[in-house]
């Protein structure tokens, strides 16, 4: 087991692809995405309806080192600022295999 940072964020589904591309540019290529999350926040209710995914959120989970987590945050923050969402960072143990 090795200590890692567990970065999770909720963003607009339409931004996921773009964001993952930005992350791959800073060599973050490991992640997990769960589509079709919906929710509510400062900008009101979002998702749960059918319209072209435009109002759907996605949940993204990344396990990484502390340094990487900082880089991820810097990449995600402007997206959150512009289009809403949230990002949490917590501690976890990575099971080596």
């Amino acid at each position: 087991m090795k200590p890692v940072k567990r970065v999770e964020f909720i963003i607009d589904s339409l931004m996921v692809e773009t964001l993952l591309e930005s992350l791959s540019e800073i060599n973050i290529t490991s992640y997990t995405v769960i589509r079709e999350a919906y929710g509510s926040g400062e900008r009101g209710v979002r998702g749960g309806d059918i319209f072209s995914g435009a109002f759907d959120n996605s949940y993204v989970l990344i396990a990484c080192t502390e340094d990487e987590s900082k880089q991820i945050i810097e990449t995600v923050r402007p997206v959150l600022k512009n289009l809403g969402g949230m990002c949490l960072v917590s501690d976890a143990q990575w099971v080596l295999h």
Partner: protein
Amino acid sequence: MDFSLLNNLIDPAILFFFFGLLAASVRSNLEIPAPIAKFFSLYLLIAIGFKGGVALSTSGFTSTAMIGIGAALLMALLVPAYSFLILRNRTNPYNAAAIAATYGSISAVTFIAAQQYLTKNEVDFGGYMTVAMVLMESPAIIMAVLLATLVRKKETFNPAHSVGAAAVSQNKPISLKEVLHEAFTDGAHLLLIGSLVIGFITGPAGKEMMAPFTSEIFKGILAFFLLEMGLLVARQLRQSKDLDKTLVSFALIMPMVNAGVAVTLAYTLGMSQGDTLLLAVLAASGSYIVVPAICRYAIPEAKPGVYFSMSLAFTFPFNIVVGIPLYYTIIDVLWN
């Protein structure tokens, strides 16, 4: 022929819409799985686009077609312009711009319902009206973005007024180029264009192959989709209890104003009854798919809840239930 309201309402698809409204209002747990509803929505776009394309391939781009399309384009510029002027001082100007775009653009399902209404009453209409519909999506969006840019410029001189909004807008506003890209590559929009072109290329031969899918089961899928729309509208109505009275009135009155302008225009241009109803419905309906999807990026200062609710929870059911038969009754009187 009986163009009464009732006649429109006993269409099974419309009845499923009412049933959906009812089910959601008694808080039933009835729900159409989201991927299915999305599929229906894609299906309707393909079917409507394809059929329009086939119709166009037989009729060709005649002067009648050009007039219909031209009239639609004119409406797509007029509606957002006067909508913005009306709303500018009655609500937040960013909201006004987004609402202008919403009403300048169109609702494909309302258009489909109008086509069904015409078919049922055996009134002809042209395939080019589908082209007109497609072309009406973008101008409204572009106008709205320009309006929002204008508002943003003013705000910068007068920052005290709306600090929050200004803060958002300083934050890299999306460029017109990006907006255009979003507008043209939006899935719904593109699928409509694609299907139209495919219908046009393959013509009647293609139609024959596709008919069982795109035509025969159409009514059933429309019924299913309108059931979902009913559920959605009722839920949206619940969420928009606190919507401004002014905006609700706008959402219920403007369809009639826009239809009136469209009918007048069509009358002047000598368009047919069928085409006129379609033009009226295009003008009267508001977008709740493409435009809200794009305005979120293009005018992030506006509240999606507002324009989305107006168009989905008020204008959409109004047009389906009252608007279509009303507009047609008037057209029928004027034309005969």
